[in-house]
């Protein structure tokens, strides 16, 4: 009992269904209406055709497709323009249907070419060429077997190897930091003078591991109160000063 109700509900909420196979566009539908109604394309009874167009797109579920809606609106506008009385003696009055007729004729002309192409194409489909390949695959480069012997291949490998440069290999050597060594070096500098600067300890061509060792040594010694680190301004040179307490000790 509930089934019919459900079905009608589904139909109501069917939404956007385009009958692709039936019409290729609004002009196609319009032309088919004109043909069905057997009216003169140069003198379209616009009110009747507009009404039928509207009815057809709603029955076909096309009334949500923009292109069909646009045509329906266009037909209504032409219908309205037709209702406006022409001013007496105004010779410049132009039939509001003229543009539509021009487009319909152009479309109809194209459809004749379609018939011709369809006929020709159908005939051609019944004839095969040698090595027929699907059209889409035709664009891809042809898969032809390579004419290549093993000797050629080995010679090519040899040429590549000859041309290739000896690869530059870098060896990564793990190098432990020498914090005690650096501490000894700092103490040696500070034994001569009360204070020193960062660059007095680090020479310009120190290796990264040496710089890190000194940094850790300084931090370690500062922590144990052996020396004091001060920096006057950000990124300024660090001043290393012997702690008075350690001096006393």
């Amino acid at each position: 009992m509930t089934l019919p109700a459900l079905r009608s509900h589904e139909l109501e909420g069917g939404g956007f269904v385009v009958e692709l196979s039936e019409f290729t566009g609004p002009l196609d539908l319009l032309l088919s209406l004109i043909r069905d109604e057997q009216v003169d394309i140069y003198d379209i009874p616009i009110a009747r055709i507009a009404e039928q167009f509207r009815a057809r797109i709603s029955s076909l579920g096309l009334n949500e497709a923009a292109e069909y809606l646009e045509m329906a609106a266009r037909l209504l506008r032409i219908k309205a323009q037709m209702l406006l009385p022409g001013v007496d003696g105004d010779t410049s009055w132009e039939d509001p249907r003229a543009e539509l007729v021009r487009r319909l004729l152009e479309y109809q002309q194209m459809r004749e070419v379609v018939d011709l192409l369809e006929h020709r194409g159908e005939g051609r489909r019944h004839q095969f060429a040698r090595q027929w390949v699907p059209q889409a695959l035709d664009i891809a480069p042809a898969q032809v077997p390579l004419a290549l012997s093993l000797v050629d291949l080995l010679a090519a490998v040899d040429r590549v190897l000859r041309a290739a440069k000896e690869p530059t290999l870098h060896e990564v050597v793990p190098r432990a930091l020498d914090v005690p060594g650096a501490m000894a070096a700092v103490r040696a500098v500070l034994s001569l003078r009360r204070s020193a600067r960062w660059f007095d300890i680090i020479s310009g061509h120190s290796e990264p591991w040496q710089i890190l060792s000194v940094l850790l040594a300084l931090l370690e010694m500062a922590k144990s109160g052996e020396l004091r680190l001060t920096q006057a301004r950000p990124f300024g040179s660090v001043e290393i000063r012997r702690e008075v307490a350690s001096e006393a000790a």
Partner: protein
Amino acid sequence: MKSLAKLLEAAMFAASRPMTLDALGSLDPDSSPAAVAAAIDEIREHYDVDGHGVEVVEQGGGWQILTRAEFAEAIERAQVAVRPQRLSAASLETLAIIAYRQPIGRAEVEEIRGVAVGGVLKSLHERGLIDVVGRAEGIGRPLLYGTTPQFLEQFALRHLEELPRADELAIALRGVGASLIGSVDVN
């Protein structure tokens, strides 16, 4: 058959695409175009008179050896070859417009058909039936499309001029219009 005819036959047999008169002529530089044309006729007649399963067909700007239409179904049934898919009505309409108005941009095709054609253009391009032939002047420099030799091949056309002229189509149109007027009178 003469030796030139045999040579052309061998070349057409080996080729999978139509061979142009130039390409056929280049096989034997000593032969005149007239001799090549005569040799083609000789092969064609030979196939027709002796009753072969293949024939020489002029299309797509050249000549090609094709199986005769009457064997298409049997060949397809045996899965030796597959017939190409038919084009949709929307594709055919778009193709017809491009064939007549080329080089033509997408907007103009849409104007004539009354619908968006972006997807159809893409699939026609993928099938190798149309190609980009240039760009229009003006805003955005839109792409212009034209038909390819494959289009001619697939529709068994020798060249584009083989399509009826636009004014010839217009005459056919007027005929339709007249008959419509006539039927209105009956009402």
